[in-house]
């Protein structure tokens, strides 16, 4: 008997201790996911004093009336449904019932009205104010609250991109916040939103945390869908750790310093996918990478030279090199993941060196240097420039690279002071927004590369139109016109590459690229 007692103690006590320890850990230690960020956030105010990281962070705390779905289409978020009047001038949002702010107060239509009035106040300095105050497609004339859960927006002109603009992450998703987020004098305190996470500790320059909002009211859908759908949080805390250096970020992932790196380079992807315990998540994104021309330049004002450049680039080879084989060629400004990317948009420039030489000869080009601006902050822009230079040599185009710091390049872009420029536009989630970013009157907006009155008319129509097939026809016409005009050469859309440690479940990359930590859980082994 004594022997059995000893044996039972010998095996039983450690087993029991382990079980108890595991239980204590599970019950006592809050679950935490650490995510690498390449820079600190700028502020916690949605769409104000923001950058890419600030947008990604704030989208966990606040939610708008509508939001982007996984496929970059727009769907309801805080709204149960949205109805648009026949004349396209009245938008009625019916709010979901039972939604609570993070301070426990219920969401009402009055809160929506208050938030929008706050955004539309120029003193707020909301980034997206120009889109709604008449400088853009239309102006919000009035916001009214006919019922406690119904809010009505009246605009002056039909606007096919109103909901898409409202959903933009750089606008903070037009996230609805409780009035207590702002002090009596109008200064920002902290976001009190309706999202699945609340603002946690922010150690500037080190990390910023999110805490799970325990009373979050998810939508009825079974799963998350982009920035909408069921956004239930499964971890207690998320910490975004600031790691500016890519090599250090990789080291942090390998050593367990972080669990998720939402944005790694194609080179690192090739290495990390072979490391045991790492999972790679890729998705095409909506960034627009290409070469811009200054069409008012004495040399590049000749469309034959611009077309010769477009025909001299071996796009397949270039994109394979730039993206390590992860992206595909796209000569359209409509991203490949857009619902409006059709067969017409798929049409691009052929690789035709003979025709390029013929055009250059006809234009009287005889090797005059053409300056191409690149920068080293974003390696893909630099590489795009270097590859273009090499490929254009084959037809005798003399490209001289001018390497600038990113801030200086942005200034040259804004003023239109360049001949050629390797550039990458931040994602536009609607085809009209993509065209809008490049089309305009150069006298008024020197940054616009495509100054064609016919294109402007087509764009205005596309911006006002909300019927999809009619918009598609307009985008097809715009693409054909752009291929003929060659104000720029679109080359490809980027790829979002996220790497997560084994044991992190539910994390996905997506066309909008921003990390999302709702719907993400820790497997039992990694807690």
């Amino acid at each position, binding site marked *: 008997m004594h022997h059995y007692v000893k044996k039972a103690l010998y095996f039983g006590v450690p087993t029991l201790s382990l079980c108890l320890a595991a239980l204590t850990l599970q019950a006592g230690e809050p679950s935490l996911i650490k995510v690498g960020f390449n*820079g*600190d956030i*700028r*502020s916690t105010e949605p769409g104000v*004093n923001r*950058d890419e990281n600030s947008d990604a962070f704030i989208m966990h705390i606040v939610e708008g009336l509508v939001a982007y779905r996984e496929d970059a289409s727009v769907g309801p978020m805080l709204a149960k449904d949205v109805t648009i009047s026949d004349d396209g001038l009245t938008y009625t949002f019916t709010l979901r019932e039972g939604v609570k702010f993070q301070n426990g107060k219920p969401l009402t239509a009055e809160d929506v009205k208050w938030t929008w009035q706050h955004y539309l106040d*120029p003193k707020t*300095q909301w*980034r997206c*104010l*120009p889109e709604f105050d008449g*400088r853009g497609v239309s102006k919000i004339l009035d916001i009214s609250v006919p019922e406690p859960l119904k809010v009505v927006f009246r605009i002056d002109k039909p606007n096919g991109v109103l909901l898409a603009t409202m959903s933009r992450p*750089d606008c903070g998703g037009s996230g609805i916040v409780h009035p207590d987020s702002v002090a009596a004098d109008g200064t920002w305190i902290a976001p009190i939103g309706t999202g699945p996470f609340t603002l946690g500790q922010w*150690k*500037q*320059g*080190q*990390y910023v945390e999110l805490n799970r909002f325990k009373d979050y009211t998810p939508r009825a859908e079974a799963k998350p869908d982009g920035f909408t759908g069921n956004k239930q949080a499964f971890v207690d805390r998320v910490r975004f*750790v*600031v*790691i*500016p*250096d890519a*090599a*250090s*970020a990789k*080291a*942090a992932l*390998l*050593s*367990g*310093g*972080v669990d998720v790196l939402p944005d790694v380079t194609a080179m690192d992807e090739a290495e990390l996918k072979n490391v045991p315990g790492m999972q790679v998540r890729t998705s095409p994104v909506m960034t627009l990478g290409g070469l811009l021309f200054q069409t008012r330049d004495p040399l590049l004002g000749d469309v034959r030279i611009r077309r010769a450049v477009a025909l001299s680039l071996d796009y397949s080879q270039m994109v394979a090199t730039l993206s390590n084989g992860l992206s595909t060629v796209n000569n359209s400004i409509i991203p490949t993941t857009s619902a409006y990317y059709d067969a017409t948009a798929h049409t691009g420039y052929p690789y035709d060196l003979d025709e390029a030489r013929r055009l250059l000869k006809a234009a009287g080009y005889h090797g005059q240097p053409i300056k191409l601006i690149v920068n080293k*902050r974003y390696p893909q822009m630099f590489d795009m420039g270097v590859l273009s230079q090499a490929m254009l040599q084959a037809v005798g185009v003399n490209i001289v690279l001018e390497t*600038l*710091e*990113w*801030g*200086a390049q*942005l*200034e*040259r*872009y*804004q003023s239109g002071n360049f001949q050629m420029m390797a*550039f990458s*536009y*931040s994602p536009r989630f609607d085809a009209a927004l993509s065209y809008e*970013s490049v089309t305009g009157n150069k006298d*008024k*907006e020197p*940054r616009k590369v495509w100054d064609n009155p016919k294109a402007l008319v087509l764009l205005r129509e596309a911006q006002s139109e909300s019927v999809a097939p009619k918009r598609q026809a307009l985008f097809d016409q715009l693409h054909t016109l752009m291929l003929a005009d060659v104000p720029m050469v679109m080359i490809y859309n980027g790829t979002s590459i996220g790497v997560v440690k084994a044991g992190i479940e539910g994390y996905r990359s997506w066309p909008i690229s921003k990390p999302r930590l709702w719907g993400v859980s820790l497997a039992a082994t990694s807690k």
Partner: protein
Amino acid sequence: MFRFILHRLGMAVPTLLLISVMVFALIRFIPGDPALLMLGDMADAQSLAQMRSSLGLDHSVVTQYLIWIKSVLSGDLGFSISTRQAVLPLLLERFSVSATIVLVAVALATLIAVPVGLFAAWKQNSAMDLGLVAGATLLLSIPSFWLGLLLLYAFGIKLGWLPVVGYVTFADDPLKAITYLVLPIVTLTLVEFGAIARMARASTIEVLRLDYIAHARAKGLSEGAVLWRHALRNAFAPTWTLVGLILGNLLGGIAVLETVFTLPGVGRLMVDSIFARDYPVLQGCLLLITCIYVLVNLCVDLLYPLFDPRVKL
């Protein structure tokens, strides 16, 4: 000595004023607009003008300078354009991180490198001397970021002994704080060791050739006594000047190491503020660095007589 200190501090005032003008003007000559960097590729002209106005960038450069210098003289370095934080507390917070690493690393490097240099000089041209010189030269030649990454890979990833990224303050958790600081301190110690050891060796060789050392040996003093009591004091004076220069240089920021080890130091703050064209932070950083140089050089000068009695203040 008091008059010397007052004189030196008095001399620092015009230097700082001149530097403030240069810093202010030079920063504004750098192409790139902070408002544009904040608004990005979607900025329209009106939004840009509004942003510039809200940041106070719509005034003339002279007016901007006068507003800034008036605030500086009242102890207010302004607010960050990027994060809207007050610059002075931000600088002090970040400087404490850089200063901890730099002071510990330079102290360690000096404590190790001086005896090593002394020993190498004593064994001049021996295999030991050649080995030490080669080692010091090697360490001197390795870029700090590369050495940092190597150590990070070995001790952080392969062995898993030390954390790879992050920072914990001593106030929060002293033990954890040490684990986060070990790798950057070791990296910096190794990098600075080379320069200090070589200087210590060279100045000791020079001193060992002097008559008073021959006299000490002739008196029958042991080699240890000759080296430590007689050679070290004189040989250390030039090394101390070098240590002062290194300190001044490093306290101004170890941006590369801070980036590799993701430490929230003043160097990284300065680099970030350059990229963001965050003028108030950048001006604050440069002013702080100038003050550090002035103070470190003053301290070195004040301590000089301890090692070389011929120097009078």
